[in-house]
């Protein structure tokens, strides 16, 4: 018994450096978030002078934020764009991943390789042609202008294809014997079984869409259609920046992505590792 206790305390002592390292690392990770929250409650002068504790200026900062920028409008826009993009992207990419992995075709690997090539092209290189296309289609300042270039990404198709390798082919055979159509198999068998992958893909797509800045900046020239990252950038404009108000805006911008991530955290981890239930 004593020996066991001794062993346990030795193990615990050996873990001390790890704990110290982890505590320091956690502090480094969490501190910017903590500062963001405290800064949202302070005046800009307090923030500039390095105050890192809570102040009493939160309500004032919030009022200033509402007066300076259309917060609710931008929040609504961001939700609309992000949800629409996530739903469409998940549907299209999962359908593509399903097809690429679970159906036999001689040309599919060549086609997939061609698709992966698109991943190598930097987004900035396609920015001007894309802008011209969207402009000519009359989709500037619209939801479609925002989401169309991102509704099918090679990365998402690859993710769904790779994870589809764990989808049991026997289920497809059984469903076919039961008389289900191929479309029915996708909706009734594939989608429920691949839900972890869907969750991971949803988190990634939603975050990308929510945080997108460059493309919206190109395609949205209308204050009515601006997103939250654009609102944040507008708050940081000019010669004099109100840091308290800016941090209040950043806080509002961060909450939805945090909620989505925390809600889908477990499924995200499962989906990334490719597990299937």
């Amino acid at each position, binding site marked *: 018994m004593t020996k066991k206790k001794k062993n346990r305390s030795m193990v615990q002592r050996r873990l001390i450096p790890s704990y110290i390292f982890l505590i320091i690392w956690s502090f480094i990770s969490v501190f910017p978030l903590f500062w963001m929250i405290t800064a949202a409650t302070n005046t800009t002068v307090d923030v500039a002078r390095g105050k890192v504790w809570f102040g009493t200026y939160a309500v004032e900062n919030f009022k200033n934020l509402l007066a300076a920028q259309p917060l609710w409008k931008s929040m609504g826009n961001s939700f609309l764009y992000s*949800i629409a993009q996530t739903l469409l992207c998940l549907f299209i990419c999962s359908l593509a991943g399903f097809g690429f992995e679970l159906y036999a075709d001689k040309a599919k690997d060549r086609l997939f390789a061609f698709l992966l090539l698109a991943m190598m092209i930097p987004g900035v290189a396609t920015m001007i042609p894309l802008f011209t296309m969207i402009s000519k289609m009359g989709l500037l300042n619209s939801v479609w202008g925002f989401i169309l270039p991102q509704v099918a990404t090679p990365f998402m198709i690859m993710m769904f294809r790779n994870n589809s390798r764990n989808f049991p082919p026997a289920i497809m055979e059984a469903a076919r014997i039961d008389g289900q159509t191929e479309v029915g198999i996708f909706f009734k068998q594939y989608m429920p079984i691949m839900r972890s992958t869907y969750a991971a893909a949803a988190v990634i797509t939603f975050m990308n869409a929510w945080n997108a800045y460059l493309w919206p900046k190109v395609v949205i020239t209308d204050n009515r259609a601006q997103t939250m990252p654009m609102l944040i950038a507008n708050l940081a*404009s000019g010669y004099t920046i109100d840091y308290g108000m800016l941090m209040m805006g950043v806080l509002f911008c961060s909450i939805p992505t945090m909620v989505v991530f925390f809600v889908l955290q477990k499924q995200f981890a499962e989906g990334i590792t490719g597990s299937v239930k």
Partner: protein
Amino acid sequence: MKRRLIALLTAGVLSVSMIPMNVFADDADAPTADVSSEDENTLSVYAWDANFNIPALEAAEADYQKNVNPDFKLDIITQSGSSDVENAVTLAGQSSDYSNLPDIVLFQDHYFQQFYVSYPDAWLDLADADIDWDDFGAEKLSYSTIDDVHFGVPVDNGTAIMAYRTDLLEEAGYSIDDMVGCTWDQFIEIGEAVYEKTGKYLLCMDGSGNDLPYMMLQAEGESQFTDGEPTFATNEKYIAIIKDIVEMIQKNVLYLGNDWSDYTDQAIIGDMVAGVLNGNWIIPTMEQATENSGKWEITSLPTLEGGEGYASNGGSSLYITGNCSKPELAADFLAKTFGAGSTETYDAALKNGGVITCSISAGESDVYQEGVDFFNGQPIYADIVEMGANVPVIEQSDYHYQARQYVGTAIQNLVAAGEPTDESVAAALQDAQDQLSFEMAG
């Protein structure tokens, strides 16, 4: 799992319920850059500072509505910075599709010529506009005039101010009178005394965007460029200026911030300095340190040989874009507000946004003659307009910001190398000049 699903569903329902509330709400009055959908009395404009140039545009809109056209409407589309406007013009020019541009843009003076050369179709000239150009300082107009044709109507005045904390000068045994027209050598001497007595620097600047060399050289009436080519290393005054800057840093007279935020937030708002030299748009930043109200005064710049120096930094003008759907209305709006020296526009722009006019006649209004408490009751706005008229016209370059970057790096290297000599400064400037020439050669 169940709880998470419920949370997810709730979040989803909440998100979706927000969409119709905000996105599809009737919002016909919100600004848009879609010039094709505007009515005949509406113009759109890109601007970027809600506390500075946007109130000036609002003032002009109200002026035009009151005195010319009651149905007029100016849609001001907020951008996150001047670079957004530059990017929008670049995108339009590169794609030869100008539909993303509004009728008018507020554009940084230093950048205009470069953008005009690259994208000439992006701009409409003001040759037919009824504007008295003599009412503006020649230096300000030199940025927006190409081959004697005017393209821009000046908005804010970039005249440089040299502001001093009179209480700290006194503590060190000096007064602001000692600073007016002093030489840079005397400035360094006084700066050392101020730092010794008060622990504050007599000057500060953003190290990543160091505008000091440009302003100090302009105060001497000279440019970093001759006939379009950089002449850093062969200009003796420039060598003397850079040597002074390095010396100031080494003797704790000048605090060189790591970046813009360090310069404004730590040095100026953080109360580290007894002096500020920059375009007068720096004033709202200075005024944030409210505890120093009444302790500041402004004057002109020191010079190498003594005598008052005048310079300018920054500032912007309004330009009509190639996408403008109503060029006559745009030109008339600019001509009757900012271009006419309208006291209604400029007085409100000053009161609401702190924008100081470039128009000599507008600077004579009563509002401009009022003393400013923060500056010890000094009528700084009238003083700045007066100083603006004295800023020497010097050669401008499309490579202004690149020059700033290379010379800024040279200064950092010289500071690290120890005590500067004429030779070491000339060699560092030669390096900077060679790098810039290489870039200019493409």
